[in-house]
């Protein structure tokens, strides 16, 4: 007998959302296969800020419940560390964090205002330019690359399969259902399909006659040499997101993004260059942590993420074809992945998510989105140089 090709559920996309979905399905005993064009977690899933604090999302409560258990559930390390600290360098920033605190409070999470003294005790590299901070007794951060690999390995341990270096080219549809996923290595039969292909989701959904408005862009991050570990690694502010890793590196991103056109999206499969923006990221970091101005940047990198027009995820089960669940996290997928994968697995298994209300994340909200929405929002490259 030749290698088993088809699967009960075929997941298109081996990013963090697809892998988590597949892992949850495998936990439920489902025969699942993940198809990945490159290497699992290679794109934005494995190269982001690692934040795990998204309580404004309907998935947020489940995210917070699951993260502390993930190492044990997966059997592999994610480097998850609890809690966050927000550093304010201006009263305006402090006010912004108070808004954060109110959202958290509504959800039953505890926050604590930090005066400068308390802040500097927790984060000794903060300078005298800080005006205060906010301690979040929830949330946290994890290592993105280690986490995606953990999902992949945990999925395999449960009998799930992963095919890397296999690009999906289209679908075979019959009687209002997808019957097979077409790849550069032939057709792969499927009872149900999860489409979680990141920026490629728009193109693949279009092949099913489904319009998904997504705008891809390139974003950049920097990493410094390691410095002594702080009590809480999840410290950010001053327009940066990021963390101190368990090793001690300061890993931060933020600032301007570059919107990509179709040519850029295709080229980004091979090249994800960074720009001199790393100097401005470094400046922001040196402002946030004046005590770390001597620290060296040792690398920078870029990732490609996609956004919907309102910046919210789409997690939905399609009506035509009926056996496809579509998921894009609109550039904020890593931290929510324990919960998003669970939600997607429930859409596959039960037709609906049983632990939260996904109404706000339905695709139908974009039914009237005009085809030139990107131009209308200005979410396009200026083309200054080409």
């Amino acid at each position, binding site marked *: 007998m030749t290698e088993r090709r088809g699967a009960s559920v075929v997941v298109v996309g081996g990013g963090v959302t697809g892998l988590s979905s597949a892992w949850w399905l495998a936990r439920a005993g489902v025969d699942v296969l993940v198809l990945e064009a490159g290497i*699992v977690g290679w794109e934005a899933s494995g190269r982001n800020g690692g934040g795990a604090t998204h309580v404004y999302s309907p998935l947020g409560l489940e995210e917070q419940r699951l993260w502390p258990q993930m190492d044990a559930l997966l*059997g592999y390390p994610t480097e998850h560390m609890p809690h966050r600290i927000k550093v304010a360098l201006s009263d305006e920033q402090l006010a912004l964090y108070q808004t954060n605190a109110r959202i958290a409070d509504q959800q039953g999470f505890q926050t604590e205002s930090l005066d400068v003294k308390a802040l500097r005790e927790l984060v000794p590299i903060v300078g005298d330019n800080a005006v205060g901070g906010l301690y979040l007794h929830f949330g946290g951060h994890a290592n993105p690359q280690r986490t995606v690999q953990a999902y992949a390995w945990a999925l395999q341990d449960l009998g799930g399969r992963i095919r*890397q270096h296999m690009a999906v080219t289209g679908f075979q549809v019959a009687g209002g259902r997808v019957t097979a996923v077409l790849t550069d290595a032939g057709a792969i039969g499927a009872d149900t399909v999860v489409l979680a292909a990141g920026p490629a989701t728009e193109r693949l959904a279009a092949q099913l006659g489904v319009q998904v408005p997504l705008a891809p862009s390139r974003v950049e991050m920097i990493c410094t040499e390691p410095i002594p570990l702080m009590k809480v690694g999840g410290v950010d502010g001053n327009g940066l997101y990021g963390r101190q890793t368990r090793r001690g590196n300061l890993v931060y991103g933020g*600032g301007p993004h570059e919107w990509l056109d179709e040519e850029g999206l295709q*080229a980004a499969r091979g090249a994800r260059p960074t720009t*001199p*923006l790393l100097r401005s990221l470094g400046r922001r970091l040196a402002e946030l942590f004046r005590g770390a101005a001597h620290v060296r940047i040792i*690398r920078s990198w870029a990732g490609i993420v996609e956004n919907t027009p309102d910046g919210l995820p789409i997690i939905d089960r399609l009506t035509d074809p009926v056996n496809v669940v579509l998921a894009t996290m609109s550039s904020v997928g890593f931290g929510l992945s324990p919960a998003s994968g669970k939600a997607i697995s429930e859409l596959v298994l039960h037709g609906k998510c049983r632990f939260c209300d996904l109404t706000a994340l339905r695709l139908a909200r974009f039914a009237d*989105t005009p085809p030139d929405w990107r131009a209308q929002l200005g979410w396009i490259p200026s083309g200054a140089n*080409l």
Partner: protein
Amino acid sequence: MTAPVDPRSIAGKIPAPERRVPLVVVGAGPAGVAAATAAARAGAQVLLLDEHPLDPELMAMDVPLFFGQRLSPAVRDRGVMLERIVKTNPALEDAVDAGVEVELGVSVWGAFQPGPTMRELPACLGVADQTRSWLIGYDRLIVAAGARDLNLGFQGWEKAGTMGAAAAFTLLTRYQACAARRMVVLGSGPLGLTVASLARARGIDVPAIVEVTPAIRGDAALHATLERQGVRFYPGHVVSAALGSRDELEGVRLAAVDAAFRPVPGRELDIACDTVCLALGLVPQVELLQVLGCRLQFRSEWGGFVPEVDADGRTSLPQVFAAGDVTGVDERAVLSSERAVAAGRRAGLAAAAALGVLAPDRAHALLRETAVPASAPEARVHDYWRQWLRATSAAATGDVLACQCEEVTRSELVGVQPPRYLGPASAPMRARNLGTLGQDGPVNPDQIKRLTRAGMGPCQGRRCREQVALLLAEAGDVPVDAIPLASYRPPVRPLPLSVLWPHDELPTMREHWVSWFGIPTQFAPHWAGDPDMTVMLDVPGGAPVE
């Protein structure tokens, strides 16, 4: 209706370069100086940059060469270093005479070329001295960055005193600031014999040259001379361990090896020394070319990944040329700069022609006069390197570090195990290894480095990149050609935040800075907003709530 381009996007936010030069040449070695001189004589305006004298802080981090803590205090005297570097490079004077502008002590940490994923950028270099960084625009770029050390470790090679051959050359010649007193040289090829001669000429005792193969590889006459001078040769031997109670090297233990590069029991000897020089090979310093996106190819005879270039040094990017050792190292010609000079000159002429300052027919005539001498490098240097790798692993009594920065051992690397600071690995984690990972598809060193952390430290993988590739090839039983190049990322020199600080930052960068896209609904409670979430055609101001 079309809105203006998203004000929070990168459009219009990268400052114009501080200055713009038609031709920038990176590296003032033989190829770079020849390129700059030829182009300037042909009428081009040329800026020649070289990072020497290096910041001693970088040298202490083994960047860009493996200096192994054998710097004499003189490296801190920038004036003296500058003087020596100019004095030992007489061709620099010719370049200045030809009209080349020369800047020494300026490192290039990034090279940027616009493309489909980076449309908002002028072609420019990111450069820095010890106090600040700035951008330099170019029309044409010649990368003549030379070669760096090939580092294959042995048990205890992390002790201060193990250094590379390129670092030894630099400290012995240009800097005249090598603090070694008694140096054991590993490798008996042209590189090893030359380093040994140079070291002896500088008053450094060289008790031994160690070679893993049964025969001495270098020039017979030089071999005989060194032997007459009292240097002992140990063919068929490997270093089984560094000696020394603390972090300083005090000697090496040698073990005889058999034809399969396994240690022969009972045949060991200790040699006292304060320095070991790894002279097994050199690696083209392609980091800027990879960052630029020039197509690279694996050519073992040239020392690994080299740019695809034509006879005039044109890379796959029409604006970028490469010349000299960065296009391939021939160890047999280690002392001769003839080929580098000719290749540099051709690249300089071709760049001048591309800039339009040199008429095509004149360029043709000049190029015809400048033939690059043929060479016959060893076909597969990596096979030789693999022999050292096998022998050092087999002879070691404990684990050998693969990556010094992150303290990852060879067995942890091949086991694809997480770093020790995460605590004891779980049972499923311990069951994973390179073999299980390989079942999912070809192994990529960038994936391995994120899992094991090998290559993720401040030296930016300079001390371990080749060793990791060889270990992956060895463990996976595949040719090293099949292992992709672990990626280089800017800044390709680890520089402090204070040096990289953008004094030229545009006000718009600050004005429109957001931590993430600035889409107002993105971080607002999804259940509290307008239930009819239609497209918002007007993005109001204000920073996002994250």
